[in-house]
């Protein structure tokens, strides 16, 4: 029981890191433009399928497909932002919800059409398979890789947002859009770049997720709930909040599945509802 605790914590942390990658973009865009983008996981799916296609049909190595997954998802998200999303920035929550649910449905059908609705498999290279023994406990190599990548990306993201001029613009736009405009910040442009970044990170998350949770066209819907929980619990616009929420969610989901399998996802939803009732703005939400 106790020996497995370390394993559960480790797997949960790795899972949480994955959820963080998938949801961090949504945290920023939701906090910044108040746009309820339920299609965020569709971007992740774009990244996942891009990676699978490059690997299985064109024979690219796994690591080389990751940047391409990022780029593909970023391009798709910017295209949608320019053509559809920007028209609804001032619309009601409901209209935004409906538009993006529509996009989710379309993406699910399109991927089912081109790739069938079967699970896609991706072969990771030899050096990422197997597991490492530390203190008599075995840790899957791929999960260690996943955690390392996620932590590196988190560090880069925090540096980008806290230490650069671009980051200052993003934070200004999240905190007070009108004031930011008044200071001459091109909020539209900043938002477009942030949106691309968020979509790209989701795409990267989608590519990395294939080994852990698999990939099929229903991904856009089944992981949407998890991503929304992370964003809602963490607080809009708060990266640190998402990080904490994703880790808590990942660990509690793993622990729930391991120790109380008969409860299923009940624990997660209950935690989400309770947290939201306690703090409607999220753990670290400002507004």
């Amino acid at each position, binding site marked *: 029981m106790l020996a497995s605790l370390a394993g559960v914590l480790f797997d949960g942390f790795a899972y949480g890191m994955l959820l963080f990658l998938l949801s961090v973009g949504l945290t920023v865009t939701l906090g910044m433009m108040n746009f309820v983008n339920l299609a965020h996981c569709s971007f992740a799916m774009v990244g996942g399928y891009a990676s699978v296609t490059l690997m299985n049909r064109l024979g690219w190595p796994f690591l080389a497909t990751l940047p391409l997954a990022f780029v593909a998802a970023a391009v798709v998200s910017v295209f949608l932002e320019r053509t559809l999303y920007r028209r609804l920035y001032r619309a009601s929550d*409901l*209209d935004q919800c*409906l*538009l993006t649910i529509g996009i989710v449905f379309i993406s699910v059908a399109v991927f*089912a059409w081109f790739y069938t609705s079967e699970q896609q498999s991706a072969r990771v290279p030899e050096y990422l398979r197997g597991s490492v023994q530390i203190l008599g406990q075995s840790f899957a190599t791929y999960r260690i890789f996943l955690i390392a990548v996620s932590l590196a990306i988190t560090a880069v993201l925090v540096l980008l947002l806290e230490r650069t001029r671009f980051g200052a613009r993003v934070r200004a736009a999240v905190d007070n859009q009108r004031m930011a405009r008044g200071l001459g910040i091109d909020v539209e442009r900043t938002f477009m770049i942030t949106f691309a970044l968020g979509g790209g990170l989701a795409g990267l998350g989608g590519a990395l997720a294939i080994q852990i949770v698999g990939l099929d*066209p229903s991904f856009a*819907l089944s992981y949407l709930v998890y991503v929304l929980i992370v964003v*809602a619990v963490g607080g809009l616009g708060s990266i640190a909040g998402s990080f904490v929420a994703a880790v808590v969610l990942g660990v509690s989901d793993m622990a729930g599945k391991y120790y109380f399998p008969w409860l299923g996802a009940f624990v997660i939803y209950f935690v989400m509802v309770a947290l*939201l*009732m306690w703090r409607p703005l999220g753990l670290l939400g400002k507004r």
Partner: protein
Amino acid sequence: MANANLKPLEAVFWLATLLPFVLTPNYLSLASQIAITALFALSLDLILGYAGIVSLGHAAFFGAGAYTAGLIAKYCWSEPLSGLLIACIASGLLGYALSHIVVRFRHLALIMLTLGLGLLVHEAANSAGAYTGGADGLQGFRVPAVLGFRFDLYGTTAYAYALLVLFLCFLVSRRIIHSPFGLALRGIRENATRMPAIGAPTRAHLRKVYTIAAALAGTAGALLTQTTSTVSLETLSFGRSADVLVILILGGAGRLYGGIVGAIIYMVARDQFSGLNPQYWYFWIGLLLVAVVMFLPNGILGGLAKFSRPRT
């Protein structure tokens, strides 16, 4: 309220709902499905269209009613009218309990909470497999007849039953909408902070309408159970919540006939395209949603109203 009586056009519409008995007797089961879906959409319209509560978890009440009616038919008695009434009350009670949570929130937190509560109820039913049958659903019961009319293979009794219940619930909803209470709801939808200033208890009103909507949704669920003699976990799923939202938006939210028109179009289209893989069906639904949001913000009925009364 001046227009509280049925207008001629409405009378024609309700008379036309009798036409399937004569014109399309082979499609009466579909017609009863449409009537049930229309009732479900009508219940969502009360909270979304009139009171402005966006819900992504309305199927919780539909499923609650469906399971209540199923459990009664399986373990107690097979008389449907009392089962319908009890299902209506049970889902209303669930709605009343949840309304205390729901009315405190707005915007994103509200959407998340209704989604979370819907998923919670779904998981609860899934976990309580001993009573609900879990993923297999509730089977092995039959509702033989209503008021002495046997449920036949063609769905004649089923459609008559569903249509009658829909009509009665519609009259109740109509009365509510045209009452001062209904007017207060629309006021809350437009501006929730100013309404208390003119003496409207916002939260009490919202709790009341949420309870009524839950009871109507549960009635629709119970109708589905009694006319099909099965209950599946799908009655509680997120997919059903999303479907009813699509139906209402397609028809036009905030209009009494929005849900009914939406249900007719959606269900008939789905029946016609039923040869397609359901995943491809959702492609068209998605496209339709995008188009409605972009070009027809008030749904089909809203578009028609604008078309027939052009601004001068």
